[in-house]
């Protein structure tokens, strides 16, 4: 199968493309007369702001969604895709922004699902399955724990699994929707290397990203989409980061202007914090950390070195073994998140889909949740729906959420716009401390600038921020102090100025700065 497709692909001039594809959601036109052509054996990047229509287009190209107009081009000829299965027969596979993995199953089971190597009477040939998996991993130059349940696997492992599964199933066109959004820097580097390998094997890759750096780094062609329309489409070497940025956002992105941080009194202070989990594994040890009003402290580190655990400890989502946490001089160790929020804590979750937002609920509900008991929203015990709606709309406008109607479920928003909704909620009111985890994950440069500006304004207004991010660039731009975690302990702390990518990188790897 792969063979023949590769041949066809060889002959074809357009491996996968679109002609006049249009898709509407009620009033909103997500895709508007989209044209583009991905040449066989190339990496074709699709860039665009949040809500530009990238995911929608990709869903259509993979047969998950049907266009209202226009047609899909496969190997130079127009086709209509009844569903993902048919797309697959044509060698087209996709990795969604939301992973399509069955969390309760193991990595290996997910890999072979629906293409199981079976011996007689439908019994799974586990040996063959494992071999297939290991070969793929080897060819891709990665290592995976095949017997781990997906729900226990780190996010980059899931990402890689999704890609390997496409290969396993014989796809030679890979559609990747923001694959790097959830990855740490060196994981991104690994992934880009992997993608280039695949390209050199003759596979065609549609690559979506907001990170123009990596886009420029690996793509052969680039198509820019804005508000559902194609702005330009052509070879990568004929454009530049800056030019792309302009085309994506329509206007020049204001460079973030960090103002002097005036340190106020301590808002968050953690002393001797340690955590041993239910299985007796040491997660955190001897952590001392403090954040003062008017400063941004960044928590850097390779994911899995204790960031999540520390955040959960500070928010009170999980209890700790030793040490204490104080918010504005109140000892909150052992307090519930509800109580901590009452003391001025705000928490932007890294897990947008399950914790940061309630996808089934309306956009308004998501903006208002947690603030709904404010006096201004309650009249004699009843919610004042008008006031709530008005407030929500105001917040959404302030954070520039591109929406159809605030009454729609938040799941109808594009990835980046969803993130903005979460931020709008958390920066609402005036929290004393904001725990911001991956605040710009999946957000376009325009949005990133906007979000960064919000964080800085918040800081300059005397807010305290604990920034947890895997974007070193982001950390460098925003942080007044940078604390690096390694193996659940503080490896070192650098002030703005004395910190550079190299020194941080060394600390992240457990070396000395």
């Amino acid at each position, binding site marked *: 199968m792969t063979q023949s497709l590769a041949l066809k692909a060889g002959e074809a001039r357009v491996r996968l493309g679109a002609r006049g594809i249009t898709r509407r959601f009620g009033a909103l036109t997500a895709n508007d007369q989209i044209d583009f052509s991905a040449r066989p054996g190339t990496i074709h990047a699709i860039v665009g702001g949040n809500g530009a229509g990238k995911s929608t287009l990709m869903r259509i190209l993979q047969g998950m969604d049907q266009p209202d107009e226009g047609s899909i081009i496969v190997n130079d000829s127009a086709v209509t895709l009844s569903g993902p299965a048919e797309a697959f027969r044509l060698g087209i596979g996709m990795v969604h922004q939301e992973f*399509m993995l069955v969390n309760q199953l193991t990595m290996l*089971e997910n890999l072979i699902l629906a293409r199981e190597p079976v011996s007689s009477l439908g019994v799974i040939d586990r040996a063959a399955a494992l071999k297939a998996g290991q070969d793929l991993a080897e060819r891709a130059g990665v290592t995976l724990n095949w017997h781990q349940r997906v729900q226990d696997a780190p996010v980059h492992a899931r990402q890689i699994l999704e890609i390997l599964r496409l290969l396993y199933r014989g796809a030679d066109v890979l559609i990747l929707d923001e694959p790097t959004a959830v990855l740490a820097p060196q994981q991104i580097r690994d992934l880009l290397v992997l993608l280039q390998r695949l390209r050199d094997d003759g596979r065609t890759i549609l690559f979506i990203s907001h990170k123009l750096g990596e886009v420029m780094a690996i793509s052969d062609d680039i198509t820019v989409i804005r508000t559902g329309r194609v702005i330009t489409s052509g070879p990568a070497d004929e454009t530049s980061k800056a030019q792309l940025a302009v085309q994506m956002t329509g206007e020049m992105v204001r460079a973030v202007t960090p103002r002097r941080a005036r340190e106020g009194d301590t808002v968050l202070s953690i002393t001797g914090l340690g955590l041993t989990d239910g299985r007796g594994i040491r997660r955190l040890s001897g952590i001392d950390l403090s954040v003062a009003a008017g400063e941004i402290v960044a928590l850097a580190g390779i994911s899995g070195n204790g960031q999540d655990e520390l955040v959960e400890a500070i928010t009170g989502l999980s209890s700790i073994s030793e040490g204490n946490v104080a918010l504005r001089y109140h000892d909150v160790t052992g307090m519930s998140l509800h109580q901590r929020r009452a003391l001025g804590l705000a928490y932007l979750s890294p897990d947008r889909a399950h914790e940061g937002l309630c996808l089934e609920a309306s956009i308004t509900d998501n903006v208002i949740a947690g603030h709904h008991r404010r006096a201004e929203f309650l009249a004699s015990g009843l919610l004042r729906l008008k006031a709530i709606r008005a407030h929500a709309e105001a917040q959404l406008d302030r954070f520039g959420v591109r929406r159809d109607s605030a009454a729609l479920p938040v799941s109808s928003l594009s990835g980046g716009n969803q993130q903005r909704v979460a931020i709008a909620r958390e920066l609402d009111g005036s929290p004393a401390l904001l725990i911001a985890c991956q605040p710009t994950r999946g957000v376009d440069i325009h949005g990133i600038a906007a979000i960064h500006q919000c964080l800085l304004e918040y800081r300059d207004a005397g807010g305290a921020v604990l920034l947890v991010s895997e974007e070193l660039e982001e950390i460098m731009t925003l942080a007044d102090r940078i604390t690096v975690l390694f193996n659940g302990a503080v490896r070192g702390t650098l002030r703005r100025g004395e910190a550079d990518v190299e020194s941080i990188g060394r600390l992240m790897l457990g070396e000395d700065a």
Partner: protein
Amino acid sequence: MLDNLIHAALIMTTPILLAALGGLINRTGGIVNIGLDSMMLFGAMTALIVAADNGSWLLALAVAGGTGAFIGGLMSLVITRLKANEIIVGLGFSIVATGLARFILKSTYGVSGTLRLPDVTRLPVIDIPGVADVPVLGAMLSGHNVLTWFAWGMVPAAAWFLVRTRAGLRLRATGAGEKAARSLGLRPLAIRDASTLFAGFMAGLAGAYLSIGLVGIFNEGITAGRGFIALAAFYFGRNHPVMTALGALLFGFFDALQIRLQGRGFPPELVQTLPYVMVIVILAMLAWSAKKRNGART
């Protein structure tokens, strides 16, 4: 005494176990089968009818299972294709079934409530010569009919099926991640329907066990809500065949025990709650230990 207790416990367990295993497979595929009782009821009725005029217990079982599967199929289609709420549909089927059963008895056999037919072929009981008189072991292994053996055989079989076979894997995937399964080109709805067919088949056998295995007659109350006890059993087992079997055994054992505890001073109504109380207690203990293991994450 002990032997009788064990023997009776296994007898009371069998119908629950059969139906529970069916419900387990069904739930693994993503449907909570509230209609098991209705499938049991019709299994019991058709089994008796066939066993009486045809005389082959094997055929009787086949027909009982088939009838259950047929009802299951209908129910499944309403749920998967018409996107109907599985709980209501299940309750609805149970209500229709009781009505229909009485209706059939009246219109076809002119009897009300109980159907008693001449020379019904009963399920063969397997006595194991040597073992039969060994104290405890005999009660456990000997003197049970084919369905009891089948039911217990199905426990490891189900476990093996779920982990080791292609169908099992796809079934689990369908239940746990329908979107993912569909995106891989599987047909979740069809897979679900298949699992409901199986559940119906097993429930039908459970019914047959009651009618031609135990009492040898059919009565409109013969299932006595055992379909719902089965539901509790596979919820109890959280979709693990072995734990589910344990759940079913709990009911069977304490049911047999309460019968024998009667007339020893305790008020019978309270003694009868023993199985239910025990299930709650054990469920609580399991949940508690699970919580301790998973640590404090709220």
